[in-house]
């Protein structure tokens, strides 16, 4: 990588460094370890990967959130999985935790696969809401990699908190540094492990970041009882700065109870 072309303005390089520093300081919440050096090294890493100078570590696409959810769900509970796909997670929960599971899925082929597994599945569009489901009728409501695919995510979240005593939400973090750099430097819609689709075939129509989600919980008066992330190949509790460093996140939330 050569030195940046600063044209006729010899101060441009310094100004760029200043802007990075400003950006780092405005990161919310302010992050101690988010230094300009760290930002620069991320950019360098990204550009070197793009140029093929270093190999990008390929993390196996493992459903880390399945393991986490399995740990969180209490045995024998009543579980609603919104956007349950082919029923893999619910099947696992039924087998290992003896839960009574109800899946909800729209895609007909996936619905058939649920039936094949013996997973109870209700074919419906989440955007139509969960009208008809009584308040607090499930111990857990799961939104596993689903929230970003619905037309009305806030409504779905509200319904989740209404029908469930607890909600478990996992999602790809659009604030992840690699996503940002793909767009900033690559100039194309990011395609990474957590977002494996092209712009034209993606089911992800409402992408958001960890900070976006935290802002929603604050606004909705929801309480986060547990937050985990996948960052640098490891699963760990959410830390400050993870809006940039975490690839995926999982949050356990409770609605504010008036009674």
């Amino acid at each position, binding site marked *: 990588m050569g030195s940046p072309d600063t044209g006729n303005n010899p101060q441009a390089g310094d100004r760029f460094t200043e802007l990075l520093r400003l950006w780092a300081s405005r990161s919310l919440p302010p992050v101690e370890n988010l230094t300009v050096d760290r930002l620069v090294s991320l950019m360098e890493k990204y550009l070197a990967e793009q140029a093929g100078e270093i190999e990008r570590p390929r993390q196996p696409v493992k459903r880390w959130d399945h393991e986490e959810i399995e740990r969180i769900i209490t045995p024998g509970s009543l579980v609603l999985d919104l956007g349950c796909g082919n029923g893999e997670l619910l099947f696992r929960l039924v087998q290992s935790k003896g839960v009574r599971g109800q899946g909800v899925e729209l895609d007909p082929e996936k619905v058939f696969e*649920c*039936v*094949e597994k*013996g997973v109870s599945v*209700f074919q419906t569009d989440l955007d139509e809401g969960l009208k008809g489901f009584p308040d607090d009728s499930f111990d857990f409501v799961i939104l596993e990699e689903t929230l970003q695919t619905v037309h009305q995510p806030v409504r779905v979240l509200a319904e989740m908190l209404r029908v469930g005593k607890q909600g478990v939400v996992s999602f790809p973090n659009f604030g992840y540094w690699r996503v940002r750099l793909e767009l900033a430097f690559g100039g194309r819609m990011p395609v990474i492990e957590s977002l494996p689709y092209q712009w034209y075939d993606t089911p992800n129509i409402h992408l958001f970041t960890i900070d976006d989600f935290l802002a929603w919980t604050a606004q909705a008066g929801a309480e986060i009882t547990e937050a985990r992330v996948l960052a640098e190949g490891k699963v760990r509790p959410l830390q400050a700065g993870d809006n940039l460093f975490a690839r995926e996140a999982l949050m356990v939330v409770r609605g504010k109870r008036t009674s």
Partner: protein
Amino acid sequence: MAVTSRDRGVKNNDRPGRKPVKPPEDPASVGWTRAQRVRLVETGETFRLEAGGEVSPVDVEYETYGELNPAGDNAILLLHALSGDAHAAGWDAGAEAEGRKWRTRKPGWWDEMIGPGLPLDTRKYQIICSNVLGSCYGTTGPDDIDPDSGKPYGLRFPVVTIGDWVRLQARLLDHLGIDRVYAVLGGSLGGQQALEWALAYPDRVGNALVLAASARLSTQGLAFNAVARYSILSDPHFNEGDYYGSGGPAEGLAAARMLGHITYLSEAAMHEKFGRRLQDKSEPDFNFGIEFEVESYLAYQGRSFVERFDANAYLYITRAMDYYDAVKSWGRGDLTRACSRIKSRMMIVSFTSDWLYTPKECRKLALAVCRSGRPVTYVSVPSDYGHDSFLVETEKVGRLVRDFLASGRKNG
């Protein structure tokens, strides 16, 4: 009783989506079948009916395919729809002798689903199907002799309900020594019987599969049935139901069937099969004969129905369909309360183009099961074949039925 290839493909008179039939020697066919008949209500004994009447004696015609296992826990009770009968699969060996010559041309009504290796696998399950009370296929109905008068019942036959049918089927299971069935399964009116089974006998049902049916018929459905009955009742040959031995209300029954057929199909299915094509001609004749292919089809369906169905039975069965209301009878107005009785695994299947038992109504039923705290499987199958989809979408329905039954066994 050879089945010729010509008989197997009446082409454009087949219902849209129907596949070629398999001969009795096909390895996936149950082969030749013979109806069985049993007296379940003796003369002098009373079988009280929901509507207040009573009937005796009562004979029931049924068929079975596959063997009951030693544990007696592999029986599947299959419930037929409006114009159906106990002959669900295979070729009726007694068709000629019983004067049911239409059965020499085609196998049972769900032959594509029942047989060795098929979704209702006769190597795993024993399938039992019986004709409903008030029908005209071997079970006591209005065309049978009323012992009080020595003449056919006609309209003196008491009004029957789906609840009555199910109680009679329970007697049949008692007779067969089956305490609990692995599954009950049916489409349309058969689906309502399956639901009634899950509600009325929660402890006797392991799995309930309700296809193209909901907790009650829609207003539009009531309206269609009203027109069908009007057509029969107003036929000059109806004679207050006492037409046995004479011609009977053939035109009225044919018209009822034609109307029925329109409701079983969808706009898309009709368009695809017939379009606006003329029947065997390139220019219209400009008269009131058969001009369009769709007219020919409906006329054929009407005609062939008259050959095999009794007009009085049509009146009684459509009434049973009208009266059925699981919300009222089991939930005192609340479907969720009704569904809280259920103890079986439930699968409810609707079809996107069905305008008789719409996906919306089927979904309501599924939601009520879910609300009652019981996991439920609800599938809305994309199909253009209308209400008939449950009969003709055998690939999709077959897959759902096979998998749902198999997973119920696996998971206990």
